[in-house]
């Protein structure tokens, strides 16, 4: 995590956009299990809960948190930001660090393959078995990178605007399988997509594991404080219990070899 940039992280008095309140951004719509019912202010869903926990650590009460909705590209654009921090399953990479600040990671993510149960692919146990399949993923996600770098399919993967489009293409049979992050995969197969099942999760990539972090404006004075908050949430076990509450079943998918 980057060092606290000199600023003292005095509770409830950070140099935020609106003094005395913390503006947290996220996309619209947002999806379970990260946020439930497209309602970030409910506190329900993993990232919503994490957001409130961070706010709490920074000294902001629940009603001092304001939510703002920012599409992906607007979140990463170079102009003045409309949020103090943004939690929308942003994966931390060095390339991206050129453009924005990231907090310490709040979640280690794995990618998973989802297929319809009646598709022969549903029984696959190895990555090699996926190489000839028609695969799809959402644009702007590391799921797409995972397809290209780990599965290396023979045909170009389909890229969709949203996971909704990907899901429809999957049920229509226009793709054989889609790759999403593991928590999403569990949510899809258990609640949303009848007859879909998780084929397995992809092995962790080489090098640093993929992690989600909060996005802040490049050079934001808050980055250090947010990172400290995340670190202490991890240390005191809060993150683990939030994960337990919202992403409980994430552990039990077979790993593809």
């Amino acid at each position, binding site marked *: 995590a980057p060092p606290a940039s000199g600023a003292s992280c005095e509770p409830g008095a950070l140099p935020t956009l609106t003094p005395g309140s913390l503006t947290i951004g996220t996309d619209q*719509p947002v*999806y379970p299990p990260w946020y439930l019912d*497209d309602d970030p202010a409910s506190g329900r869903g993993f990232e919503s809960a994490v957001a409130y926990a961070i706010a709490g650590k920074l000294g902001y009460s629940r009603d001092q948190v304001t939510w703002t909705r*920012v*599409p992906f590209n*607007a979140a990463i*654009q170079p*102009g003045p930001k409309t949020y103090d921090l943004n939690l929308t399953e942003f994966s931390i990479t060095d390339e991206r660090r050129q453009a924005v600040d990231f907090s310490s990671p709040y979640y280690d993510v794995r990618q998973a393959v989802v297929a319809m149960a009646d598709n022969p692919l549903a029984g696959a146990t190895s990555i090699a078995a996926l190489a000839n399949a028609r695969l799809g993923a959402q644009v702007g996600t590391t799921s797409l990178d995972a397809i290209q770098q780990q599965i290396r399919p023979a045909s170009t993967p389909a890229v969709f605007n949203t996971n*909704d489009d990907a899901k*429809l293409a999957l049920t229509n049979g226009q793709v054989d399988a889609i790759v999403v992050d593991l928590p999403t995969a569990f949510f899809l197969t258990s609640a949303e997509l009848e007859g879909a099942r998780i084929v397995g999760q992809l092995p962790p990539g080489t090098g640093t594991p993929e992690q989600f972090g909060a996005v802040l404006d490049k050079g934001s004075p808050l980055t250090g404080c947010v990172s400290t908050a995340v670190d202490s949430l991890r240390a005191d076990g809060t993150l683990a219990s939030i994960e337990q509450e919202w992403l409980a079943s994430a552990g039990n998918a077979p790993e593809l070899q």
Partner: protein
Amino acid sequence: MTAGTTSAAAPELSPLAQERLRYRRSRARRSTLVALASTVLFAGAVAVGITSSPGWPRVQDTFLDPAIAWSSLPAVLEGLWLNVRVLVVAEAGILVLGLAIAVLRTLRGPVFFPVRALATGYVDLFRGVPLLIALYLIGFGLPALRLPGVPTDTAVLGTITLILVYSAYVAEVFRAGIESVHPSQRAAARSLGLTHRQSMRLVVLPQAVRRVLPPLLNDFVALQKDVGLISVLGAVDAIRAAQIESARTFNFTPYVLAAVLFVLLAIPTGRVADALAARSARRQGWA
């Protein structure tokens, strides 16, 4: 040869004229019936084919769920209201800028070469650049400069971008109209002592605009929908509203709803064009 005797010009129709009128009417009626019947038949066949398909229940649930349509209506309508507001402002700006560029592009003579070249360059640039990318560049790039006095409101920046891009298209439409007016009309105007501006305004443009009304309205119908692209900057238009609703319910009915609303919005535009064209044709005796 017989001539010289004229039958009285009957205010009443003669039996012959009546019979012919009846024949024409009956033919028109028959062809209406044939067209109607074949349309109904064709539509019916397609409908049966679709509704009896194995996937139909799924499709019906996914695309045509009345409960979801009803519940998403307020959000989609609110989004549409944004489209309409931006549309009105943008249209005014586009007409003015597009017309100006078209007039510059149609100036003749070597003296005006540089002006023409600039106008051509403008059209090439702004017509060529994808609207989405223009929105990113202007909507994100301009505020990022952090210059004082530059607007940062996304609706304002989005509207400016729409005007810049669409005026390039509209300029080409006007140009076609201006160039289709026979040069002898310009000669007549100039010979009466009208200035270039007056000839344009009073003689060339009235004829030009009438001729290109359909493609002009094309651009405005397209704009009605492209206005929605400013939602990439953060505003929520009808399509984005539909997307949000659709994501909430994992159902595509809100998109269908938005489509229906857009079609309803576009239909009057088409009828206005038809009415205007018919009126001026009737006046000029072309009917």
